[in-house]
């Protein structure tokens, strides 16, 4: 068997002397809201919904894509990350005001009266355990993952984030009409102008705030979460949504290419929503998919014939996972579950495997608990 050796040492009795060098990034594990992935040594952070650092293809009326966009930013606030919000339509300050409020989960509350519940549950279990009587004297332990291994929070969509929490967050903004008014000699902002300015702005923030390690000793390391809303839409000055023969078909892809470079060399993650259903030339979305780490499409049932389908009566739409990240790895895309459905109840947005939708329909009492996908 092949042995990989680093820095000397002969392989003995078939064992390899390969030693995985502890990557320098393990020191980054102290950044709040992140944990290192054991598979590829990258830092993982939560997007508010599990594992969606990505390009989001917007649903028809942009309702749910905006919701996921807000989840991403809200998670940044709760973890204490820095935010960069870019939009051409909505003022970033208004976007931030409408972020969902975090639901501090019951584990926190339980810590306060944990002993109480442990006693109660023990009494219950003494009556019920006939077969497993040997275990009934053990205290009921909460089977929850260790705090450090668990990242991510739940949010209440019906409530807005508190202003105090917002004020404690450091954030930066880019609003296209504002940028245009700063430079009144430019009458209209074409795509090159808009995208270039956005890249310059992001680069400046990354450098000034030290996300690329330019100030290594000074500050506590933190993550920059970038959210760009409706990139490629008409309000950014791009015409890929109105014609299939646009003026500069590569401006969006050039922007993504440069942005990717900026993200790779800094501690940042980005979510971009794209009105893919409006982009006329399908080759553009193919290129965007190639240039992104994760691509997820949202399809809402509003106005489609699926709205009246009884199978989907509790659901608001489908999620199509077009691409999952393959950073620092040679394996190909092996995820089995690509078909997902989502539903938005009063408070929570949950994603489920689409096959379970049929089970819900057939035996709703039995499948009343939804299975959250992690």
């Amino acid at each position: 068997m092949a042995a990989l050796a680093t820095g000397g040492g002969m392989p003995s009795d078939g064992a390899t002397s390969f030693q995985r060098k502890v990557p320098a990034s393990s020191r980054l594990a102290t950044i709040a809201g992140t944990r290192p992935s054991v598979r590829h040594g990258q830092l993982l952070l939560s997007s508010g919904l599990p594992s969606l650092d990505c390009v989001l293809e917007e649903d028809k009326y942009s309702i749910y894509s905006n919701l996921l966009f807000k989840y991403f930013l809200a998670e940044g606030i709760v973890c204490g990350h820095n935010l960069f919000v870019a939009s051409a339509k909505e003022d970033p300050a208004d976007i931030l005001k409408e972020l969902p409020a975090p639901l501090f989960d019951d584990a926190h509350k339980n810590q306060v009266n944990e002993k109480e519940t442990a006693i109660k549950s023990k009494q219950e279990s003494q009556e019920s355990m006939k077969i497993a009587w040997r275990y009934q004297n053990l205290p009921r332990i909460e089977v929850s993952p260790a705090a450090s291994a668990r990242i991510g929070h739940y949010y209440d969509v019906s409530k807005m984030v508190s202003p105090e929490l917002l004020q404690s967050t450091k954030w930066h903004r880019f609003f296209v009409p504002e940028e245009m008014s700063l430079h009144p000699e430019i009458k209209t902002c074409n795509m090159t102008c808009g995208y270039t300015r956005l890249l310059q702005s992001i680069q400046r923030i990354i450098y000034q705030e030290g996300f690329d390690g330019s100030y290594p000793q000074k500050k506590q390391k933190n993550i920059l979460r970038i959210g760009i809303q409706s990139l490629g839409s008409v309000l950014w000055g791009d015409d890929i949504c109105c014609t299939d023969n646009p003026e500069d078909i590569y401006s969006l892809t050039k922007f993504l290419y440069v942005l990717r470079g900026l993200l790779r060399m800094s501690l940042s993650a980005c979510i971009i929503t794209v009105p893919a259903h409006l982009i006329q030339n399908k080759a553009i979305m193919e290129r965007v998919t190639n240039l992104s780490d994760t691509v997820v499409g949202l399809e809402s049932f509003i106005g489609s014939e699926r709205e009246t389908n009884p199978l989907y009566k509790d659901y608001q739409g489908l999620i199509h996972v077009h691409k999952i990240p393959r950073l620092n790895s040679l394996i190909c895309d092996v995820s089995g579950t690509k078909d997902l459905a989502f539903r938005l109840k009063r408070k929570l947005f949950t994603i489920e495997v689409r096959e379970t939708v049929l089970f819900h329909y057939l035996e709703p009492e039995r499948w009343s608990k939804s299975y959250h996908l992690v």
Partner: protein
Amino acid sequence: TPLWPAAPLRSWLIPVSSPLCASRGESVHVFGFEIPEEEFLAGFDPDVTVRLLYQDGFTDPLRWTGEAGGFGAEEFTALGVAGRLARGPAGPATVVLDSLSWLLLRQPLPAVCQTLGRIPRAAASAGLRVTRILALLHEDLHPPGLVETLRSLAQAVVGVRPAPEGMGSGEDAPRLASMLQRKGTGKVLTKEEYFTVLAGFTPKALGEPTGSVPRDEDADPHSTVDPTANLTFNLRLSDTERRARDGMPLPFHFSAQK
């Protein structure tokens, strides 16, 4: 009398909505490019016309004569529009563009959309409050991608087309309006309604389509989709299958056969 094939939108939409705005005490600024001012104002009551401020973009669109009061295509910028609005009375204002199609034939769509988005801000800095912008569009003049993009940007979209044959009677041909409204809470409301316009530009609703108009996907309006049909697996067992299943020894059970 409106000529409905040629200009189905304008002929009734502005006449209907302007009195509504005027009655609320708002001023209505109309940027007209397609028909002359006299033709536009014909048929309105005097108390409506006093609230209507017409910016004439029809007489001299390219500004060759340079007469004061005209509005040229290149003046359609946020500052240009706000400047015209400032000439009117203070207070809430509605901006009407007749038509957006005319502007889109002369300026690229991204520029027009950016200008539309910036008009409220530019007006606010001049001390005015633009409550709504109403833009008319001749759908058949533009590629579908452009129309879809505009629909996605608008908060409310009203589409007008002639009603199917056999609806209504009389000289006023009824029309079908399909409305789509996006509310702030993220809800999307859609509605379809037949209507006609009576004398004096008052609209009259004629009721909603009952679905007697045949639709493509489902001829029978009472049948719903059955999700248990067309599955790739069996949901129910026949008797023989059930017996075969019951007689099967499970791998981890001791049985006489093993």
